[in-house]
């Protein structure tokens, strides 16, 4: 009881302070809380706004933005200039592939394809029949198998006999294999000795059945890349119209289209020996990363030049000498070799005459290109194309020289003219 009374007495004395100070404190406290909330709200709003911006940008880049959203995005650009720059950088990032090691993935893909190819191609003629039999009852399957077996045995006997007779008769004659690609398509083949050949568009490879048994000789019209299996006892020889290339085991690219002005051979690794049939010229040995260019037309061959081929950079070549040895050329963008870019489905050209370029394009796109103004033939172009179609390529070329073109016959014929 006593304690309570003293408490009552004390209250007025000390009670004033606690009552006033909390009120003051409360005001400060409330103000602080209020401003904190306000600040947080602003931060949140800003954050949401930014999120909204990234939302919109992501949508636009993914091609998902509606016209309204695109307009909304534009508002952000007007408000904040920094966002414009970031967007430009994201544009560039977006357009560049995130695929590293393109070469590796190419190799992987090629490897996977070769395993698939075995599964899908070379269908045995009897296979579809047995497949149909699968739908029938068991007995008929058995019957079918018997029939198939009988037919197979019969066929085997007949074909063996036929083969024996034939091989006996035509012992001397050698069968020729011809692999060719049409314009607009490429192909990869493996020769009996394991040598890999990539055949560019509009090209032909001829070898006979003795290839790999007695010798390794083949004939090439057009462009091909060879990765030759090493065999010191059996040199590998490629014949083109103007040069013969002899190797033991290397990788090299040969380009020899009859309708081009020049033929060329580019050595990627190893060494190759080039000889010139029918010409009074010594053999030449090429070192890696060298390229030999030779005129296709049987023009007069200056002997001095031929015996001592001049080494010059490609940029300097003005009037092409009969035979030139030069370094191979790299693409500045990704330091790939220009000469073999066609294997990566890329068309790269440096200061190339329009006439020569048109020949490439004819083969690449399987079209026929006619020039109505011969002055255009010598215009020089530099560029790189990968997946573009012919129209896109022509439009891009127009940017560096304003010519005109029109398509006829369903786009198979292209006419190029000046005005």
């Amino acid at each position, binding site marked *: 009881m006593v304690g309570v009374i003293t408490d009552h007495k004390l209250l007025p004395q000390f009670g004033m302070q606690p009552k006033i100070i909390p009120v003051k404190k409360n005001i400060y406290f409330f103000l602080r809380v209020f401003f904190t909330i306000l600040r947080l709200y602003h931060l949140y709003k800003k954050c949401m706004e930014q999120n909204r911006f990234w939302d919109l940008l992501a949508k636009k880049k993914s091609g998902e933005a509606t016209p309204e959203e695109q307009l909304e995005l534009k508002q952000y650009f007007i408000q904040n200039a920094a966002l414009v720059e970031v967007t430009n950088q*994201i544009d*560039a990032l977006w357009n*560049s*592939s995130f695929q590293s090691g393109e070469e590796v993935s190419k190799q992987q893909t090629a490897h*996977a394809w070769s395993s698939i190819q075995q599964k899908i191609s070379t269908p045995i003629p009897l296979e579809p029949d047995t497949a149909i039999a699968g739908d029938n009852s068991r007995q008929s399957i058995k019957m079918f198998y018997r029939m198939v077996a009988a037919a197979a045995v019969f066929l085997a006997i007949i074909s063996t006999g036929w083969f024996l007779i034939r091989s006996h008769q035509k012992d001397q004659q050698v069968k020729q294999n011809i692999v060719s690609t049409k314009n607009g398509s490429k192909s990869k083949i493996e020769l009996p000795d394991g040598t890999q050949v990539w055949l560019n568009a509009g090209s032909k490879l001829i070898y006979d059945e003795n290839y790999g048994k007695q010798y390794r000789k083949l004939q090439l019209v057009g462009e091909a890349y060879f990765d030759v299996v090493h065999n010191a006892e059996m040199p590998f020889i490629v014949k083109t119209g103007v040069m013969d290339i002899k190797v033991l085991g290397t990788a090299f690219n040969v380009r020899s289209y009859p309708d081009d002005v020049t033929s060329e051979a580019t050595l990627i690794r190893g060494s190759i020996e080039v000889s010139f049939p029918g010409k009074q010229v010594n053999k030449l040995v090429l070192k890696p990363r060298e390229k030999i260019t030779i005129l296709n037309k049987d023009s007069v061959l200056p002997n001095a030049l031929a015996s001592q081929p001049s080494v010059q950079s490609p940029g300097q070549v003005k009037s092409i000498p009969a035979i030139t040895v030069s370094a191979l050329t790299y693409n500045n963008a990704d330091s790939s070799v220009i000469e073999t870019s066609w294997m990566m489905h890329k068309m790269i050209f440096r200061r190339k005459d329009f006439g020569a370029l048109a020949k490439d394009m004819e083969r690449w796109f399987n079209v026929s290109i006619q020039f109505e103004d011969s002055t255009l033939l010598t215009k020089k172009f530099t560029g790189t194309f990968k997946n573009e179609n012919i129209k896109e390529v022509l439009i891009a070329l127009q940017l560096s020289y304003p010519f005109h073109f029109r398509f006829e016959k369903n786009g198979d014929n292209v006419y190029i003219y000046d005005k």
Partner: protein
Amino acid sequence: MITSQLDDLCILVAQKDDELAFEKIFNHFYHKLFLFAKAFLKSRESAEEVVSDVFVKLWQNRESLPAIKNLNYYLFVSSKHAALDYLEKRNKLLTVNLDDLAVEFGEISLNPEELFISAELLMRIQQAISALPPKCRLIFRLIKEDGLKYREVAEMLNLSVKTVETQMSLAISKIGGELLAANIFPHANLSRFGDDRLEQGK
């Protein structure tokens, strides 16, 4: 490749059994499907096997190729089913957790100069991408690299379109954030980078 070119190839395959055209289709899709399948299977060999099977089946049913409206999406869905079947057959997994995928992201194949940014920044962007959660990275890959639509990704991965939207926004904001920071304080980032290295050196 442009869709019209792809359509032409499909017709060649269906009507003329053109293996060369089929190879072109294969070359166009194989690698991205491989990476996609590998994210689920976490094994190079099984991913190769699964995607190869998808293409063998595609060849076997080649007559119906031109009837497929969206080959890109079709192949991704087929690959996903094939990958899940593969896992199921081996009793490895009954449900796939999207946050537990091995999503491989290659390096940006671009010179920093072409982007007008420093090599360090490019590296930081690369790091920002690899720091994204697997689900986000997978979605970003499928949309940016493989050209799928939000709706397609959502359907394929059993997600809502809203989720895909959020994940894409997250990826873009992480990259954009790095760029924005670097644009506003170009030197701050460099010095911070340098400090980290110094500390590591000690």
